[in-house]
C-alpha cells in the first residue's frame, strides 16, 4: 500500500507556516475542511501525532479503528484516520513518502529503559513532549493513546516480527491531510536517538495549514 501523490497547494497561500524544532512539541486546531501538511525537512524524521475531536477530546484517533477500516497497518494517500467512535477525522490527500506507521507508538523514558537500558532514563522522549503539549490544553496522560508516526518505517512480517528500521522518507517529503471534523493536532517531533527512527539525528519539521 503506497500511493505517491503530490499536492497542488502553494506554500504562499497557507494560513499557517511554522517550523517545529527537533525534539519539540506542537499543537494546533485544524478546522473541518482545512488542510494540514507536515514536511520532513531533512529526511527520516518521525513525527508522532495524535488527533482529538475539538468538540469532545474523549473522541480521539484510534489505531485499531483506522487499520481495520482500511484493512492495512500503513497509512498513505486515501487513508482515512478514524476516531475511537469509528468516525472519519482526517483523510490523507497527498503523500510523497508513501508509508507511515500505526503500530510503534511513542517513545517514553520508561519504555526506553526496557528497550535500551536504564542509562537512557533521563533522555528526552516523546512522552515528555506529549505531556507538555497536552498540559497546555488541559489534558494529560489519560489522553495518550497509540499515535501515528509519520515518516517512520515499522515493517511487520507474517510471523509477527516488528522492527523500527531506517526510514523510507527523504528531505522534503510531506504528508497532507484534509480535516473531516474540527480536530486538535498534537505532535511530538521525536527526539529518539537510540534507534534509527530519526536516522540517528532528530531534525526540524515544517507544518502548513490551508483554509
Amino acid at each position, binding site marked *: 500500500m503506497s500511493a505517491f501523490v503530490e499536492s497542488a497547494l502553494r506554500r504562499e497561500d497557507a494560513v499557517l507556516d511554522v517550523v517545529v524544532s527537533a525534539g519539540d512539541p506542537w499543537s494546533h486546531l485544524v478546522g473541518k475542511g482545512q488542510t494540514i501538511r507536515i514536511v520532513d525537512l531533512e529526511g527520516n524524521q518521525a513525527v508522532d501525532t495524535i488527533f482529538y475531536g475539538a468538540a469532545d477530546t474523549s473522541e480521539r484517533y484510534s489505531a485499531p479503528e483506522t487499520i481495520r477500516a482500511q484493512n492495512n497497518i500503513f497509512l498513505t494517500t486515501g487513508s482515512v484516520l478514524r476516531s475511537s467512535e469509528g468516525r472519519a477525522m482526517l483523510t490523507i490527500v497527498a503523500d510523497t513518502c508513501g508509508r507511515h506507521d500505526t503500530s510503534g*507508538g511513542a517513545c517514553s523514558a520508561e519504555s526506553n529503559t*526496557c528497550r535500551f537500558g536504564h542509562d537512557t532514563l533521563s533522555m528526552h522522549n516523546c512522552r515528555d513532549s506529549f505531556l507538555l503539549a497536552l498540559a497546555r490544553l488541559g489534558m494529560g496522560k489519560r489522553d495518550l493513546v497509540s499515535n501515528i508516526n509519520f515518516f517512520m518505517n515499522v515493517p511487520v512480517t507474517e510471523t509477527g516480527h516488528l522492527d523500527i528500521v531506517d526510514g523510507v522518507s527523504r528531505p522534503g517529503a510531506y504528508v497532507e491531510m484534509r480535516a473531516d471534523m474540527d480536530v486538535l493536532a498534537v505532535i511530538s517531533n521525536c527526539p529518539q536517538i537510540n534507534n534509527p527512527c530519526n536516522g540517528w539525528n532528530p531534525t526540524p519539521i515544517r507544518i502548513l495549514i490551508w483554509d
Partner: protein
Amino acid sequence: MSAVDPSTVLCDETIPGGAYWTRVIRRHTTLRIVDLEGSRGVSCLCYNADDPVERYNAADTVKIQNMIFVTAGRVLFSDMGRVLFSITEDTSGHHDTLAGCSTPETNRARYGEGDYQHLRNDRHRDGRTNFLYALGRHGLGPRDVMPNLNFFTRVRVAAGGALEWIDGCEKPGAFIDLRAEMNVLVALSNTPHPLHPSPTYDPKPIRLLVWRSPLPGVDDRCRTFCEEAGRGFRNTDALFP
C-alpha cells in the same frame, strides 16, 4: 490442561457469550481464561489497580518485544515500562494485539440490528460498550479505553501491510494463563472479534479461574525470556520493595 490445586483457587466462574467481566488480579496470582466451546475472541484491557492511569500499552508491548504475537514466555507491558501480566502457559497460541474490539457499528455491519427491545438479553453486545460498562464501575471511562488485546484469535500482517484474519483458532479446552506481576485491574469483553467471519452473532462461554500460583523463581521463563523483559521486571519489582 495444567492442573490447578483446588485449595489455591480464589475464583472460578463461567460467563456467557456477550458478557463482560472485571476484577482485580493480585500480584503473583494467575488468571486462566478457558475457551470452552470455540471462542470467537475475548477482548481485554488491563490497568495498574493501584494507579489506573498506568495501563496496558499495545504499542509498547509489541515494540519492546519486537513481536506482535504474544504467547507463553511473553509479557504484557504497561505504558510505564512495567509488566502487568506474564503469559506463563498458553495452549491456544493465538492472540491479536492490533485489530481492536467490536463496536456497535461493526456489530451492526456484520450481524444486522440486535437491540435489547427485540432480543432482550440475547442482544448483540460489543467490546467498546462492554469496556465502558466494566470500566465505569471503577470510575474509569472513554479516556481510559486503549487499543486492546484479543485472546483466541489470529490476525497476521501480510507483505504490504494488509491485515489477514487466520481461521481456525476456536479450540474448546484451550486456555491462556496470565500471572499478575502487579495488582492488575482487568476488564474482559467476551464478544466476537470484529474480523471474525461468522455471519451470525454467536459468542461462546468462557471459564475464568483465578488462583494463588507459585511465586516466580529466578529462572522463571518470562523473567528470563529477553533482556528487555528482564528490565521491565526490574521496573515492576521496584513497586513492591
